[in-house]
């Protein structure tokens, strides 16, 4: 017993000692969207080299990002869809949104022969409603004349967690299909008519990658880095657009950006725009003085956000995210400038 007791006590002592030793290193904790995770993980690795500050970002989905910033369990949340006023109501303080990049949600699929396909918004809605069940369906053939399509069943892959990518995708489907709007609607998590659920963009890409006949909506970089085929999507002007930095950035040109930057970029009026594009946001409290937060922590967060919207933007395009347009970057700067600590600027 003595041995065991002393073992237990020494373990406690060791952990206490480790606490005091480790508490000095600057760490910013964030959680949320998986949509920008490849970008953020790169940015944070570079930021560590540039500033010495560690950033722990967990790619748990935008729904969790929104929930955790409301619960104040993280320093910042991340989400691809901006939080609505309704969603921000339970938050104990004023929340700010700062966009970090523009990304494109693409329909990725796995078919024998890797054909290049074109989708329309209505077709995507019908596939996700479970009305189009086979790849040989006339609706797919009509949009893709000359492509040989197998008689494979369509495996619909979608998210099982609360997701900003889902919010962007369902927001788009609601705009182009009234049936989708009434039956399912747009949200971070919805009641899906069909499909198999995967966790995160990564999980959906994983299902598509390993399943012949699967289709899934993922951020462009997940399709590219995992060598998945993805289809062009017809935009509002009827042009079939292959997702890329240019067409994603064009989506923001067709839209009036409000001062708080909370806006949907889907189904843009711009004729060159990719139709399923979105900003991806970092969300945090305007007044940083809450809980046991120190002014140092607030400064670390502010420095990180400033870096991400300026020098950090250099990492966007190599990873297939569009940079923030100049007017949006200016708005981001002024939003970050309103951060305060107990009312005092820092």
């Amino acid at each position: 017993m003595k041995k065991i007791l002393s073992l237990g006590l020494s373990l406690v002592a060791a952990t206490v000692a480790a606490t005091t030793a480790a508490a000095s290193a600057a760490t910013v904790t964030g959680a949320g969207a998986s949509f920008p995770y490849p970008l953020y993980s790169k940015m944070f690795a570079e930021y560590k080299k540039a500033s010495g500050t560690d950033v722990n970002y967990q790619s748990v989905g935008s729904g969790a990002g929104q929930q955790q910033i409301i619960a104040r369990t993280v320093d910042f949340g991340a989400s691809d869809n901006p939080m609505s006023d309704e969603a921000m109501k339970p938050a104990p303080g004023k929340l700010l949104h700062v966009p970090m990049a523009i990304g494109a949600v693409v329909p990725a699929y796995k078919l024998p022969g890797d054909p290049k396909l074109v989708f329309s918004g209505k077709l995507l809605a019908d596939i996700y409603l479970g009305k189009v069940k086979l790849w040989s369906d006339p609706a797919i053939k009509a949009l893709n004349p000359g492509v040989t399509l197998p008689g494979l069943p369509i495996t619909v892959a979608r998210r099982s967690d609360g997701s900003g990518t889902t919010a962007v995708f369902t927001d788009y489907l609601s705009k182009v299909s009234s049936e989708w709007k009434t039956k399912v609607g747009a949200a971070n998590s919805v009641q899906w008519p069909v499909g198999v659920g995967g966790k995160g963009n990564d999980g959906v890409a994983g299902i598509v990658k390993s399943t012949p006949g699967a289709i899934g909506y993922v951020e462009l970089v997940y399709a590219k880095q995992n060598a998945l085929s993805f289809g062009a999507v017809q935009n509002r002007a009827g042009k079939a657009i292959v997702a890329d930095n240019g067409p994603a950035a064009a989506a923001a040109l067709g839209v009036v950006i409000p001062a708080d930057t909370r806006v949907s970029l889907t189904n843009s009026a711009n004729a060159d725009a990719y139709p399923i594009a979105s900003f991806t946001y970092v969300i945090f409290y305007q007044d940083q003085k809450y809980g046991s937060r120190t002014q140092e922590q607030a400064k670390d967060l502010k420095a990180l956000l400033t870096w991400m919207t300026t020098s950090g933007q250099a990492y966007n395009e190599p990873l297939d995210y569009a940079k923030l347009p100049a007017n949006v970057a200016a708005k981001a700067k002024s939003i970050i400038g309103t951060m305060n600590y107990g009312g005092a600027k820092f």
Partner: protein
Amino acid sequence: MNETVLRRINRPRLSSKGDGVFRRVVVGLSMVIALTFVLSIVLLGVQSWPAIRQFGLGFLSTNVWNPPKNEFGALSLMIGTLLTSLLALIISVPLAIASALFVAEYAPKWLANPVGYLVELLAAVPSVVYGLWALFALKPLFQQFQTWLFLSNPGLAAQCTDLFNAGKTSLPCFFMPQVLVGQGFLLAVTILAIMILPFTASVARDVIRLVPADQREAMYALGATKWEVISLAILPYARAGILGGVILALGRALGETLAVAMVIGNTPELLKNIWAPTATMASMIANEFGDAREGLHRASVVGLGLTLFFVSVVVNLVARTLIVRMTPKGL
């Protein structure tokens, strides 16, 4: 002289004081156990209260899981949980009993020990490792089989697609895959069956070993074959104990989380097809607790946890009672 007398008088008093302190420390620390139990009920109850107030017992009997509309009912999840667990039991129990009989009755000692040990190790494999193996090793096999089934019966496949479109199913269609994803109900059942094997097997082995030697010898003396001894003398005697082990395994299966969440397809829907994705209460908690908004959604997810808590308490008590009744000392 005086000193020794004093010491003798003092010693019991000293020791009783030490005993009192020691006892208080031991009892105090032990109360953490009771406290954990009570706190679990209170905390889960408080967190799920909005859902309990809103839906009442209807929470368990309606089939809807619609976060945007704030409508939640756990029926499909309860059914998913029960069906996966029960089917896994049906598959694993005969196998577990076979291995227990092998270890206790057939194998020579040099073989019985390693086999018994391997079964114990099987119990130590973590849930996520089972899930990983199922995804990388079993899922491709399932996909190949599904593809073969689908492509070799084009007529039936087309007919089933029409039926499913109309929201119906038929007996052959229940076994015809709709999609070739591998993941889904059947893969979850398979991995669960493997995971719970060692629990039934080790309890069964222990109770079979407790069957008195007289019982066996009497049967052998009557000229019975080995199987007759097993089926007439051993299994009936060990029945209650084995049943206890089976119910313990059931408790395990009901609460199994990540291995199931990784392979079941995470769709809160009633099962229309043996390959189809569905969900269990535990897999739903793992998927949705992190992002469920304060309010009804979060309360409903915690409500699933509270339900699981009570179910596992009942299952456990029943299993323990059965095992204790079988073996006075308990196992």
